[in-house]
C-alpha cells in the first residue's frame, strides 16, 4: 500500500495532502488546479516538495524528515504522460524496450509479446512515433511504461488529449491493466466517467487538499463530493448481466433490481459496473405508471444537499446501492424529501463497464 504525505507551497497555491493507494487503480480526482499533477510529479520525483513522505512498506521514495530522496531514475516507475512523450528518434519497438534496459536484471518482467498483444500494437513495432495516430501513441506509451518493470504505474490524464472515439479506444486497455497487472496504478483524472469506469479507490481533491478518499462506490455516492462539479456527479453500482433479450436490450440485475440497457456484448453472468449520472435520475414519491423509462429503483432518501444554488443533490439508498439524483431545490421541497422518505428513482440512462475483479470496493 502506497502512502503519500505531501506539503508544498507554490506562489498562490498550497498543497497539503495525505492519502493511501491500495492495490488497484487509485484515481486522483478533481478539477484542474486541484493539485493532482503536482502530486503525481512529486511521486515521480520530477518535483521536490517542501515536505513529505512517499513510501510503500520499506520502499521509501521520499522522506524529507530523514533527508531521503530517491532520484527519479531509481524510483522504478512507469509514468504514462498526457502527451505520450514517446521518443521521436526511436522506433516503437525501441521505445517499448527503452525502460527494460535500465530495469534491474532480477526485476519481474512483463513479457514483451504479451504486452504487445494486450495493447494491439504488433503492427506498429517498426514505425516511428511521428507516423502514429494519437490513440496508437498512447497505447505505445502504456506499453513502454509497463515494460520498464515498474513497481508503480503513474498516469496523468492519459486520455485528456484524445477525442471521444480515441478515449473509448484506450479506456478498455486501462481496465485490462487494472485487472491483469498486479502493480498499483495512480491515475489522475478530472473526468467523472473515467473515474467511474476505472477507480478502485478514489481520492477526491479540491484546492490542494483531500476532500474525501475511499473505495470508489463510497466516495462517488457521497453527495458532498463533486470535485468535478455537480453536473459531472454520478454514482457507481455493481450489477451482473442476466440475459440478452430479442428486442436488443440487455438485462442486468443490481441487488435484485432489474435494469435494462441497450445490448452489450458481455456474457450473461459477468459482473459489470454501472454508472448512473446524477442528472439522469428523476425522483417520484409513488411508483410512476405509464412512463417510457424502463429503469425504476425503489429506495429511501439518505441525504439531501444543497449549496445555496437552485439545485439539490439527493443521495438514495436502493437495493442496488447508493444512487445520486440531481434535482431542483424547489422539487425537493415540493416532494418533501428528507432522510428516511421513500421514493422511486427513475433512471433515464445507464452506462456500463466490465467489473474489476476486486468488486466495487
Amino acid at each position: 500500500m502506497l502512502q503519500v504525505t505531501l506539503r508544498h507551497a507554490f506562489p498562490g497555491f498550497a498543497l497539503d495532502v495525505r492519502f493511501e493507494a491500495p492495490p488497484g487503480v487509485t484515481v486522483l480526482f478533481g478539477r484542474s488546479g486541484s493539485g493532482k499533477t503536482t502530486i503525481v510529479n512529486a511521486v515521480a520525483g520530477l518535483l521536490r516538495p517542501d515536505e513529505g513522505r512517499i513510501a510503500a512498506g520499506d520502499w521509501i521514495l521520499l522522506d524529507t524528515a530523514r533527508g531521503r530522496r530517491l532520484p527519479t531514475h531509481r524510483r522504478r516507475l512507469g509514468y504514462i504522460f498526457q502527451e505520450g512523450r514517446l521518443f521521436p528518434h526511436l522506433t516503437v519497438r525501441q521505445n517499448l524496450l527503452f525502460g527494460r534496459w535500465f530495469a534491474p536484471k532480477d526485476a519481474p518482467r512483463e513479457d514483451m509479446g504479451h504486452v504487445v498483444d494486450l495493447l494491439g500494437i504488433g503492427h506498429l513495432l517498426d514505425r516511428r512515433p511521428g507516423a502514429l495516430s494519437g490513440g496508437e501513441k498512447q497505447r505505445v506509451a502504456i506499453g513502454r511504461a509497463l515494460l520498464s518493470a515498474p513497481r508503480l504505474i503513474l498516469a496523468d490524464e492519459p486520455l485528456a488529449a484524445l477525442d471521444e472515439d480515441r478515449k473509448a479506444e484506450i479506456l478498455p486497455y486501462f481496465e485490462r491493466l487494472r485487472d491483469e497487472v498486479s502493480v498499483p496504478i495512480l491515475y489522475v483524472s478530472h473526468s467523472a466517467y473515467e473515474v467511474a469506469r476505472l477507480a478502485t479507490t478514489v481520492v477526491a481533491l479540491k484546492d490542494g487538499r483531500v476532500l474525501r478518499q475511499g473505495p470508489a462506490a463510497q466516495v462517488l455516492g457521497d453527495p458532498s463530493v463533486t470535485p468535478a462539479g455537480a453536473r459531472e456527479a454520478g454514482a457507481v453500482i455493481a450489477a451482473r448481466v442476466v440475459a440478452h433479450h430479442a428486442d436488443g436490450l440487455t438485462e442486468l440485475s443490481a441487488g435484485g433490481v432489474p435494469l435494462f440497457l441497450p445490448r452489450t456484448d458481455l456474457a450473461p453472468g459477468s459482473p459489470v459496473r454501472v454508472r448512473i449520472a446524477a442528472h439522469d435520475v428523476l425522483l417520484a414519491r409513488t411508483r410512476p405508471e405509464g412512463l417510457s423509462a424502463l429503469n425504476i429503483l425503489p429506495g429511501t432518501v439518505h441525504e439531501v444537499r444543497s449549496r445555496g444554488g437552485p439545485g439539490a443533490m439527493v443521495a438514495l439508498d436502493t437495493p442496488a446501492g447508493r444512487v445520486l439524483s440531481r434535482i431542483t431545490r424547489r422539487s425537493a421541497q415540493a416532494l418533501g424529501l428528507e432522510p428516511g422518505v421513500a421514493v422511486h428513482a427513475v433512471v433515464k440512462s445507464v452506462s456500463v463497464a466490465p467489473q474489476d475483479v476486486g468488486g466495487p470496493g
Partner: protein
Amino acid sequence: MGDWLGPEEWQAVALSLRVAFWATLVSLPLGVFTAYALARWTFPGRQLLNGLVHLPLILPPVVTGYLLLLTFGTRGPVGGPLADLGIVFAFRWTGAALAAGVMAFPLMVRAIRLSIEAVDPKLEQAGATLGASPLWVFLTVTLPMILPGIVAGAILAFAKAMGEFGATITFVSNIPGQTRTVPSAIYAFLQVPGGEGAAMRLVLVSVAVAMAALLLSEVIGRRVARRVGGG
C-alpha cells in the same frame, strides 16, 4: 590537383585541412558540454561563461591572438607548464589549431545550444522515469536528437577554422609548413610581386571548401533530421 597547385600552395591547403580538422575534433566535446551547460543548467557565473565563449566573436582577432600568445606562449601561465610537458603551441601548427578552435568555438556552441534548446525537457523527464540516469538520458535521448545541431556546428566550426587569419598570424606567425594556412599564404603571396596567380588559386580552393562545407551540412542535416524526426 597536385600539378595544378604548386608545392607551397599544396602545403598550405594540407596544413589548413589538418588545422581545421583537429581544431574541430578537439573542441567538439567541449562545445557540446558548454552548450548543454548554457542551455540547461543554472549556476553562478553562467553569464560570465556565456560572455567568455562569445568573446572571440566580438574581439578583434588580433586581440584574441595576442591574448593566446600571452597565455599559451612558452612563458605564459598555461603555455609554460605545458611546454615543460613537451606540449608547445607557440609557432607550431598545434598553435594554429588552438587559435582556429578558439575563434570557431562561439559558432559551434551557438549552433549546438540552439538544437539543445529545441529538445523538449519533458522527453528527458520521460527517460528518467523509465530508469535512465542523467548521463544515460543525455546519451540515449538528448544526444541523438541534437545530432543535426552538432553536425551543423561542427561544419560551421570547420569552415571558420579553415579561414581563420588574424588570431593565427598574431599567435603563431606565418611560418611555411608550420603555421602558414591558406589565408596566411594568400596574404603572403599578395605581398610579393608575381604572387597573384598563386593567391588566386588558393582563393578558389577556399571558395570550393566553403561551398562543399555548406552543401555537406545541408545534406547531412537533412538526412539526420529525417531519421530523428520520424515519419
